[in-house]
Structures are given as C-alpha cells and as structure tokens.
C-alpha cells in the first residue's frame, strides 16, 4: 500500500513523519527464491569470482613472501 506522507485537509495539509505513518507494502522477496540467472547475472558473478581468486592468490603470495618461503625457493 502506498502512503503519501501527507493528507489534504480543509485548512491545509497534514504532514506525517515516516515513523508515524501507516506501514507500506514493500517489494517482497518472499517466495521468489534466488535471483534468476540471466546472462548479466552469470557474467557478473563469474567476474566477481575471478576477481576474488586473483585477490586470494596475491594475498597468498604476500603471506609466503613474508614467511620467507619464496626467498628460499629463489
């Protein structure tokens, strides 16, 4: 349900604070389950996974470097 934040009255307008107003019916995700795997969603999540793998590899390299393991190999 949509509230308007104000109500016309004979002498003007009554402005209602959001916290005092009637609750709205929001867009609900209940029963929708997971997002539909469109091409854009699949590509975005794929890129995100690749990005996270690269970051993890860099972090792993840094940890090995700090531990002196790479120095020994060289």
């Amino acid at each position, binding site marked *: 349900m949509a509230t308007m934040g104000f109500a016309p009255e004979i002498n003007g307008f009554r402005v209602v604070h959001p*916290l005092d107003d*009637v609750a709205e019916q929001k867009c609900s995700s209940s029963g929708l389950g997971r997002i539909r795997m469109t091409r*854009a969603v699949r590509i975005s999540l794929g890129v995100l996974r690749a990005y996270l793998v690269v*970051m993890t590899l860099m*972090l792993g390299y*840094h940890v090995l470097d700090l531990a002196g393991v790479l120095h020994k190999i060289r």
Partner: protein
Amino acid sequence: MRLMDPEVELTRSPAKGVLVRSAWQRRALTFLMVFGPGLIVMEADNDAGAVSTYMQAGGQYGLHLLWLLVVLLPICYFVQEMVARLGIATGKGHAAMIYERFGKWWGRFSLIDLLAVNFLTLITEFAAISLALGALGISPYISVPVSATGLTLMVVTGSYLRWERIVIALCLMDLSWFLLAFMVHPNWATVAHNSVVPTMPSGGISSSLVFLVIAIVGTTIAPWQLFFQQSCVAEKRLRFSDLKWARLDTLIGATFTVCVAGAMMVVGNYGFQHQVVFQDPAQLALALGPIASRFVRDGVLLLMVNAAVLGTTAISLASAWAYGEVKGWEHSLHKKLWEAPGFYATYIVCVGAAAAIVLIPHVPLQLVIISVQVFAGLILPSAIIFLQLLLNDQELLGDRWVNRSWNNYINWTIIVVLFALSLLLAAQVILPNLFQR
C-alpha cells in the same frame, strides 16, 4: 508488487502529524522529516581515516588533488542513490537482500568480510581518538573508554530519532572545517582553479601519487556505506513517496562531504606551504599551532575526534544492522536494549573490543591499516556488484524501481573503475615491490 489506491490510503492515514497551510510548507516539512540518512552516511564517511588521507593529500601535493573530490561527488551520489532506492523499495537492508537473492555462500562472504573490515576500521577510529586527545594532554586510558561509553549510550536509548538528531548535530560540527580553512588563508583563486582543472604536482606521476589517488577514492566510497544507508532507510521506514527527498538528502550529504574534504585538503596545504613533515593529522595540528594559531591546532584535533566518533557509530551500526538482519534478530534502534539484545550486543562488542585493542601497548596499527585496505578491496566491488544486480532485478522490484538504461551505463562504468582501482590498491598493498621505481 502491489500498490494500494491512494484515495483509499488517505482515509487510513493516521491522525498524527503536523498541519501546514501551503504546499511549499508541506514539501519543506516532509523533506526535513526524511532528511538524515543521506547526510549521515556521507559525512560519517569523512571519518578519522579520511581526515588523515585528505590532510596527507594537501600536505604532500598542496591543492593539486582538489579536482578529484569534485569528480567523486557524482560517483558517491549515484552509488548511494541506488542504495536509498533499494532500501525504500524493499524496506530491508543490503545484507538481507544479498542472502535472500544470491544465497548463503555470497551472503556469508559479504557479511563476514563486512564485519571484518568494519571492525578493523573501528580500531583505527579509536586509535585516532587516542592520538588526537593524547595531543591535547588527555590520557588514552581516559579518552578511549569515555568515548566508547558515550558511543554506546548514544544508541541504547530506544529511539532512532534521538540517535539521528545527535549524529546530525555531530555532522554539522564539521562546518568548523570551513572556518579552519578560512583561517589558514589559502589562495582562493587557486582553490577554485584546482577544483575544476586537474593539474599535475611538481614531481609528476609517482607511485605515491597513484597510491594517494586510489586511497582518496577508497576513502570516499567505502563498503560499509552501502550497507549502512539501506538499513538506515529501512529503519526510518521511508515511504515510496519519500524517494525524491531521500535523493535530495543524499545529494546534499555528498556535496557537503566533498566540500568538507576539500576544506581538510586546504588545511593540509597550509602544512605543505610551510614544509611541515607529518605522519598523521595530530602531528600536523601540533606543528600548525605555532605558525597558524592555537585555535587551528585544537580545532583540527577536536574535529579529528568528531570524525572518529561519527565513523564509529555509523560503522558499528552498519555491522549490527547487517548481522541482525541475517540472523533474523530484532535489529532496530526503536527497540529497548532488552527487546533487541543481539543487535545491541553486536554494536557494543564492536565498539568495546575495538576500544580495548587500542589500549594494548604496541598494537600493530600499520598491519591493521593494511588489512583494512585489503578487506575493503574484497568487499567493495562485490557489494556494489550485488547492488547493481539487485537494482536490475525486475522480478523483485518491478518496473518502477529498477535501474533505467542510463543508470546502468553510469553504474557499470563506476563499477569497472572501482574494480580496477580496488585491484590496483590491493596489489600495491600486498605486492609493494611491483610498484617500486
């Protein structure tokens, strides 16, 4: 999505509210009632780390990087407008939406990463409080526990509005940065010129300049902001009709924040002009005392504390809201302490533990700062990708709330740039040898 007929709705409006005579009074009052989340999320982003970054930018490169702030203004606005829109449309926080639409794996990843980066950032906020008040002669063993207690008392009153009013007052205290900027007498023509025309510092492009540019971008668009504003909008129960005012609130917040950041750079520039060498804003403030005035010195130190307090309350709330949403706990500032124990416990544990860590002697703050940058590099691109995908989720939002084509062009461009910068920043932090000339 179902919308009730407004005529029917009007008959159900509550008797509460304020009676005004004209349409412009109605608009002005509605705006004032909606105003808050946008200003708070933006200004709290000028936290202790941001003060340090902007003053360092001014101290190292004078006024040369002012234009970058102007470029970041629309980017900040576009990202946070999406967050406000999603919060108003769904009435739920960002963490809950990621869990519901992308599943547990992505939900847990986002939540754990958010909690980690937020907690590490909180440690830096308390370190700044300790540093700034230490420079004013107050022991950390007094300043840190007193700040932590004050920050806790601020939220446990059982009233969102009380918290919001206190925080807006703290945000407005940042107006004092403009006074400090005027007191150090910059060349205003240069300020205006460098705000709109990118100029090169005398040393040309160096790795430290690139690092600082990325740090400014990372400071201005922080991952917790996405989670915070969406939860805050949901907490304030903003209505569909409030969206235009929420947008205006966000725009005012972004503009104010960028102007305050510019003022910080101007104050830092004063140190640059007088060849002051400094590691943090407290050192700069102490050095400025004899050459500017004691007022400037104390002003910078107190505003640094204000920045840290603002950052701490917003970041801790972002964590508490996100964790509460995912756990299915009561997670509202409208609730009393005993009505939402998990939510308040998360806030108090975040604040208390970060404060306690700062009091440990020889805590490795440099490691904390590096970890913040790495975790932020992980969370920001993922959170922003989820935001963009959710705002294209027709099934969830319907035609009214999804992004328009022009929104998507702008947002994908912002996302690609943020991805590249986050990767570059992380690479620079994790693999510094790659960037040494």
